């Protein structure tokens, strides 16, 4: 039992990182109708951004802050203005293809410009473990949970308890109506892009010590975030959380009790089951498209 609980706890911690990346994914879809298949690379790039900052002698916390600013500008503002804005009027598919292009470009850029080798990445948390009720918990897992939880809660508070957050929800639920009511839709969408970029930075900070920084690390985290979003419900912010945590826990449980070889397939199996039996996702609503 203790070992099961242990698997669950560390699974929740890993899942929380997937959830943070998935959260940005669903926000982008809800508010802007953008499916970002470069989401994994949006996590990978900040990881290398932080490595470069550390390379010039910055401490990790400063590297993180500098990277957040850069990500907000490049992955938030520039991505919206340069890629999303010109393509959004042509439907979902051209933009999906463009984000696939961004993903390939980002990987090639990092591989040839930085390194094709996996790089060590410092953990923001101290080494070591502590014990709670017979369960051994690492500081890394606990810290990951605290940070991911705080991020999610403050994002929820922002969306539900501020005037701007409510305007963003309005845009997500009915863009045309929001526009007629005087909400600056373009600005709200920009906020979502910036929030997504910042969430990606947090995910990078938390996951890279585990995965190591590598040009193709985004493939794993990107697909997991995508599956998490679909499993939980693409149009529900809470869905992304549930999907992420579910994948994290199931990966751990399957990896331990069956075989570590199956671990990477867990998200895909869950994804297939959801697509077959509950396509709107566990917490999702069926979408009605206005014609």
């Amino acid at each position, binding site marked *: 039992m203790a070992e099961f609980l242990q698997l669950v706890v560390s699974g929740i911690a890993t899942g929380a990182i997937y959830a943070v990346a998935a959260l940005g994914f669903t926000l982008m879809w809800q508010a802007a109708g953008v499916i970002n298949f470069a989401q994994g690379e949006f996590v990978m790039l900040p990881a290398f951004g932080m490595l470069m900052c550390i390379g010039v002698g910055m401490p990790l916390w400063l590297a993180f802050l500098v990277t957040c600013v850069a990500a907000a500008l490049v992955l938030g503002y520039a991505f919206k203005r340069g890629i999303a804005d010109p393509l959004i009027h042509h439907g979902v598919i051209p933009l999906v293809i463009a984000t696939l292009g961004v993903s390939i470009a980002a990987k090639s850029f990092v591989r040839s410009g930085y390194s094709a080798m996996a790089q060590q990445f410092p953990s923001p948390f101290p080494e070591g473990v502590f014990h709670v009720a017979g369960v051994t918990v690492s500081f890394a897992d606990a810290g990951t949970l605290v940070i991911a939880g705080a991020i999610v809660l403050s994002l929820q508070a922002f969306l539900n308890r*501020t*005037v*701007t957050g409510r305007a963003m929800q309005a845009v997500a*639920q009915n863009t*045309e109506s929001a526009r007629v*009511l005087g909400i600056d*839709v373009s600005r709200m969408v920009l906020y979502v892009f910036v929030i997504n970029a910042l969430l990606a930075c947090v995910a990078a900070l938390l996951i890279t010590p585990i995965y190591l920084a590598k040009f193709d690390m985004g493939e794993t985290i990107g697909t997991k975030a995508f599956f998490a979003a679909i499993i939980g419900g693409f149009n529900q912010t809470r869905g992304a959380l549930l999907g992420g945590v579910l994948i994290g826990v199931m990966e751990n449980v399957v990896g331990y009790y069956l075989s570590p070889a199956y671990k990477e397939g867990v998200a895909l199996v869950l994804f297939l089951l959801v697509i077959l039996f509950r396509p709107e996702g566990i917490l999702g609503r069926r979408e009605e498209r206005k014609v």
Partner: protein
Amino acid sequence: MIARAGELLHVDALHKSYGAIRAVDGVSFRVGAGEIVGVIGPNGSGKTTLFNCILGQIGPTSGRVTLAGDDITSMSPLELARRGVGRTFQTLQVFGQLSVRDNLIVAAQEFESTLPRRLFARPDAGLTARADEMIERFRLKPVAQLHAGRLSYGQQKLIDIAMAFMPRPRLVLLDEPCAGVNPSLVETLRELLAELNRVQGGSFVVIEHNMDFIMRLCPHVICMVEGKVLAEGPPQAVQSNRAVLEAYLGN
């Protein structure tokens, strides 16, 4: 002839063509401050296209729209909202995942403050009292806390209309407020609109197929057929106009 107060909206020779189809074909009319104007006409006569052109949702092919003397032709809905122009749609536009009260607050909050204040302001933007006033007026009090998407069609319609009036607009374009609404609610709606016009002021332009509703609410009626204004005047005169009867019934 009805005496017109100060003119608020002036639509001047508005055209909207889609290829060879002239959806709006040289429509001109004026709406005075505080006036309620009805727009009737068979399906496909260009009424909604006219609204979309006035509201900047689609750009007119030619023509001019002025609001209190300012040219607002092809202005974005955002700019128009800031100038006090609102609208309702034929279909429901409520935010289903927000509570009724939040729907009303969101409908007016963008007029209240500046960017930094919006980020850190009180979450209700100081609008709860105003929202509750509208909730009371529109008889939505028992459901004020519920998600709007869970309410009946009629209740959502009421929210929809209440939202349009939240920011105290100078001009509201209402597109078929009675569509799909049961007869007793139609009467409630008529009373509410007349009351809002009286206490809150503002000019309304109302597209509607329900003739009884239009006759009793609007002192001035425009009849559109095939993109053109066929007749205009007091409702009784328009209703008994021979050309209007032919357009509706065929000859």
